[in-house]
């Protein structure tokens, strides 16, 4: 295993097998300290299984790993410095939000005085005394985040933290994650909202069917994708002539919704515009777009959107 002193998380060949089903297969990835790392994958791809192994909740079938420089076989060495919300917030329905946090604060040996400021921080200051069962999904999610922040963590592990939040709540979580990262906290956040991760994650780990298909900087992933020119002729009958022109200049092209999607740098747009004009084609629109992380992801995983 690589030197893990600069890594928040590092796993090598991590595998989990349930009977005949392989939930995670030889996953190898690392997360640098002090970064926000997105953990992406379709449902059932092994994200939560991986997170549970990192937190000592389930035992790997094979492989090794470290969290904050400590082996995952000894979670007691690093969990006091880790905050986590796994697979949605789970609390005692008959206890208030405040009392639920106090239970966890007692358990972790934390000062009870941190509970109220944490409730304020996640926007539950005025509802801390209400029973958990009366909370909306968004409020439950906020309480889960507050619980994860109890140990003032060096590493924060969040599993789908924006589920159930309204746009304002999503914005607040995003800001919270950014603030924590600025303060030196490493954040490992899983989400199916890829656009969410694109905006906050500097680093990315992608899973598909239990296998890691990408582990690296988000910017590198985006840079790896060629920009696309989207050209739409005024008259649909001209689309075939447009395709011929593009292919003659050795560019790959496909037709989506009546527009030609051409794998080409933005600099070729004026040339295409001129060639189309010379061929008697009027372009209704010509734009250069960068693929979103979502498009990149679906291209890599082979899923249709």
């Amino acid at each position, binding site marked *: 295993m690589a030197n893990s002193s600069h890594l928040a998380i590092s796993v090598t060949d991590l595998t989990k097998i349930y009977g005949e089903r392989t939930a995670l297969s030889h996953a190898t990835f690392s997360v640098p300290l002090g970064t926000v790392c997105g953990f992406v994958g379709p449902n059932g791809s092994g994200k939560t299984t991986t997170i*549970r192994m990192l*937190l*000592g*909740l*389930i*035992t790997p079938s094979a492989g090794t790993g470290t969290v904050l420089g400590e082996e995952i076989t000894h*979670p*007691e060495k690093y*969990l006091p410095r*880790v905050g*986590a919300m*796994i*697979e*949605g917030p*789970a*609390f*005692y*329905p*008959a*206890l208030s939000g405040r*009392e639920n946090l*106090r*239970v*966890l604060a*007692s*358990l*972790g*040996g934390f000062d009870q005085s941190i509970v109220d400021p944490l409730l304020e921080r996640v926007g539950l200051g005025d509802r801390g005394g209400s029973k958990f069962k009366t909370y909306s999904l968004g409020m439950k999610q906020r309480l889960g985040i507050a*619980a994860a922040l*109890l*140990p003032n963590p060096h590493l924060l592990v969040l599993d789908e933290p924006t589920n159930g939040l309204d746009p304002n709540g999503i914005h607040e979580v995003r800001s919270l994650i950014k603030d924590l990262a600025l303060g030196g906290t490493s954040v490992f956040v899983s989400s199916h909202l890829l656009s969410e991760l694109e905006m906050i994650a500097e680093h990315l780990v992608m899973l598909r069917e239990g296998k890691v298909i990408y582990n690296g900087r988000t910017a590198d992933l985006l840079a790896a994708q060629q920009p696309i020119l989207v050209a739409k002729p005024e008259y649909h009958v001209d689309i075939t002539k447009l395709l011929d022109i593009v292919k003659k200049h050795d560019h790959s092209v496909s037709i989506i919704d009546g527009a030609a999607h051409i794998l080409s740098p933005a600099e070729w747009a004026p040339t295409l515009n001129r060639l189309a004009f010379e061929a008697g084609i009027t372009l209704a629109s010509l734009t250069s777009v960068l693929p979103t992380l979502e498009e990149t992801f679906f291209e890599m995983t082979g899923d249709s959107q």
Partner: protein
Amino acid sequence: MINVIWAEMRKLRRPTLLLSTMAIVTLLTTLFTFLTFWRVGDPNGNGRRGEMVTAQFLSTPKGIIYGFNLVAFLLGIVALCIFASQTAQEYTYGTLRNLLVRQPARMKILAGKYLSMVLFAMLMVLLSLISSVIVAYLLAPHAHVTTTSWTTSAGLTALASSLGNVLLSVISFGTVGMILGLLFRSPISAIATGVIWFLILENILAGLVTSTAKWLPGQNITNLTTTQNFTFTYQHSLTMVAIYLISSATIVSLLFKRRDVAN
């Protein structure tokens, strides 16, 4: 460990659980003791399973603890339900993962949880004893029971011995509840299994094949409170209960320690 106990006490002290349990315990004890003294000497029976308890018997040093001993089995069932639900709910609510992230030493979680529930059971038993003694003193004149022997050293010894045995019995039933909770990971399944076994199946089995009673866990736990005329000794029951509880607790503890927390 002390952190786990504090955390668990926060859950156990919630008013709906604490007050309702203590109210039920007080009500049951008061009712059982009241009926024993109110219907003293009634040929139709005022004791366990229709037996007649006389004022003469109630005036002995053991008279003060008769009502308390009568309710011991039901206290045990209450403890079984609480221990089972408090344990299994961690699985159904999904809160076990929170506990284990904050305290990864699983045996500490288990031991702290158990000790906190034992403290809860002790409070329950103590309240029951106090209720029973108060009702016994209040109704003694009505039942023509003399209470002088209750405060003799023999009376106090009987009281202390009864408190210890009922406590042991209640904690044993509670331990079974916790074991079932860990095994089934569902409060309803754990409680239903425990209650049906102890209230119905064991009694049918012991009634049909009397020789089996000696080996049944519930019969032996009940024998610790010595209110029934069992054919086997207190020592035998103590040994059997210890064997049952230690062996099954060891197995489920190992399961808890090694089992993946995947819900």
